[in-house]
């Protein structure tokens, strides 16, 4: 219905009919593909053609080229001027070969190898970055005037103060769960009061630091990477450098200091909230009054357990900040890269928090702390 081929005095004449628009291209393409010609000459008759666009024109001319009809051997007659002009444009531009998009599939071994190389590269870059930040911190000690108080305080506010609610909520709930599970077991042996020992120690030494660090990694670590990454995309980091400032001094140091001071405080809030959660369950389920709970806690919770938890926090914080800022500065100039790097920050930070916690456990055990 789109094309009527006829033989008129030995010449192929193709009557194009109807509206040759993109919407009808699948039908047109099917008809055109079935086209057979005697010889390599043809005449395109446009007298029945109502509309024509480039997609339809392209499909026709491509098929004609396959059949051996090239510019010299295709004649156009009775065609509206606009349509003829369009066909000329299409013919001029279609000379180039079509694109094949080769996607090479990599074998399993190659993938593993590439991943390993990538991890090595990340680690090396991380160490280099640590060195650069160290140098900038040393410069800061020599010239305290470089310190950006305002930026640091505002980062501290978003990293710490704004996170108090979520940190307290999560540790409170974990305190509840932990006390409940422990209580069910302890009650069987008539040892309900030992729940206080368990909750106090677990929350202060392990749970609160880990959970709060994970929350901060997801919350602030991701934010750091996204902020610095989009600044990189907008060339703001280049502008900072051009103005004679150091991106590390302007962007990284305030965030590093804010998170290192903030995380121990959040962990302390977490300690209190977790113990409060345990206390709630103790009084509701185990009949241990809050007064008795606190009295017991005083005698059984060693100060060093709390201190260990608080000491771990700035170490976690430093890793989170360094990973997040470095990933932010490593963003390439497009939006997808920001997303990829942010994801990578969160994953790396959480893994490192847990690895560090394990290291702390082993080392402190050996030291007898």
């Amino acid at each position, binding site marked *: 219905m789109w094309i009527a081929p006829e033989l008129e005095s030995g010449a192929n004449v193709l009557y194009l009919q109807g509206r040759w*628009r*993109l*919407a009808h*291209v*699948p039908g047109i*393409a099917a008809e055109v593909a079935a086209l057979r010609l005697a010889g390599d000459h043809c005449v395109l008759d446009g007298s029945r053609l109502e509309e024509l*666009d*480039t*997609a339809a024109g*392209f*499909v026709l001319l*491509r098929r004609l080229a396959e059949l051996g009809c090239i510019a010299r051997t295709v004649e156009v007659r009775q065609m509206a001027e*606009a349509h003829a*002009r*369009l066909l*000329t*444009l*299409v013919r001029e*531009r*279609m*000379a*180039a*070969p*079509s*694109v*094949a*998009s080769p996607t090479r599939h990599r074998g399993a071994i190659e993938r593993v190898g590439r991943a390993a190389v990538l991890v090595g590269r990340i680690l090396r870059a991380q160490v280099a970055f640590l060195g650069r930040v160290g140098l900038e911190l040393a410069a800061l000690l020599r010239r305290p005037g470089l310190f950006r108080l305002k930026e640091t305080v505002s980062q501290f506010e978003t990293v710490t103060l704004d996170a108090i609610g979520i940190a307290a909520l999560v540790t409170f709930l974990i305190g509840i769960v932990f006390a409940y599970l422990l209580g069910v077991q302890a009650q069987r042996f008539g040892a309900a009061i030992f729940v206080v020992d368990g909750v106090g120690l677990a929350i202060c030494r392990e749970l609160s630091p880990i959970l709060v660090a994970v929350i901060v990694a997801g919350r602030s670590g991701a934010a750091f990477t996204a902020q610095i990454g989009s600044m990189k995309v907008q060339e703001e980091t280049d502008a900072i450098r051009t103005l004679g400032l150091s991106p590390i001094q302007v962007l990284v140091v305030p965030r590093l200091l804010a998170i290192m001071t903030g995380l121990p405080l959040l962990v302390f809030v977490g300690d209190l909230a977790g113990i409060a959660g345990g206390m709630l369950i103790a009084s509701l389920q185990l009949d241990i009054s809050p007064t008795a709970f606190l009295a017991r806690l005083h005698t059984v919770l060693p100060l060093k357990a709390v201190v260990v938890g608080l000491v771990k926090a700035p170490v976690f914080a430093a890793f989170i900040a360094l990973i997040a800022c470095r990933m932010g500065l490593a963003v*390439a*100039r*497009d*939006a*997808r*890269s920001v997303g990829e790097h942010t994801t990578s920050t969160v994953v790396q930070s959480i893994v490192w928090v847990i690895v560090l916690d394990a290291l702390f456990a082993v080392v402190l055990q050996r030291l007898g702390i």
Partner: protein
Amino acid sequence: MENVLEVRDIVTRFGVDVVHDGVSFAVQRGEVVALIGGSGTGKSVLLKEMIGLLRPTSGSVHLLGTDVCRSSEEEMNGLRRRFGMLFQDGALFSSLSVAENIAVPLREHTDLPDALIAPLVGFKLSLVGLSPDTGRKTPAELSGGMRKRVALARALALEPEILFLDEPTSGLDPIGARAFDSLVRALSDSLGLTVFMVTHDLDTLLSIIDRTIALSTGKVIADGPVAAVMRSDHPWIQEYFSARAPHEEGNR
């Protein structure tokens, strides 16, 4: 000739700021029209209102016979296949390759098989003067001028009847800008495409534009061929065109 775009009494307010205070004009099929105006006169806002991304406070926009401000989402979707928009910085999808970018409208809005989409995409690329090999690259690997060309190819993918361009030559070097201008003009002539652009580029105005509409203080202050607009005695227009004069003298 038939009007493909009619803008009637557009008023736009953002809070107390009046951006447009009764803007009206019409564009005929096949015309290449430029909208000029100083910074902050709401050129881009007007453009977004014409294609339904923003809603004016009052007034109406008829695009290809459809009332943009008062039509349902379904009618708008039908309309969106009939015009193309080239955003200022290209707005290419950075997660897709160049070829995939151009294929997006074809995949979403037509039933073309993949076997037909691939050659069509290659053809669109050569239509805008790029080598089909460009299709494999990602937008991040392209120069500013190439990004605009790819964006143009994407805007042309659905064979639109009208093409909107937002500052098509900004950020291009003069040679690239002139090449882009002549590409737009050639496509408009061959495809019978109506082109409506917002521009700051005087060279564009003087080379490829049929008609210029000047916007100032929320109103249309001049509408006509460039030569006629240049003769207007409105102070802003005088200043706009005289900004170029020293250049020309320097060239002589």
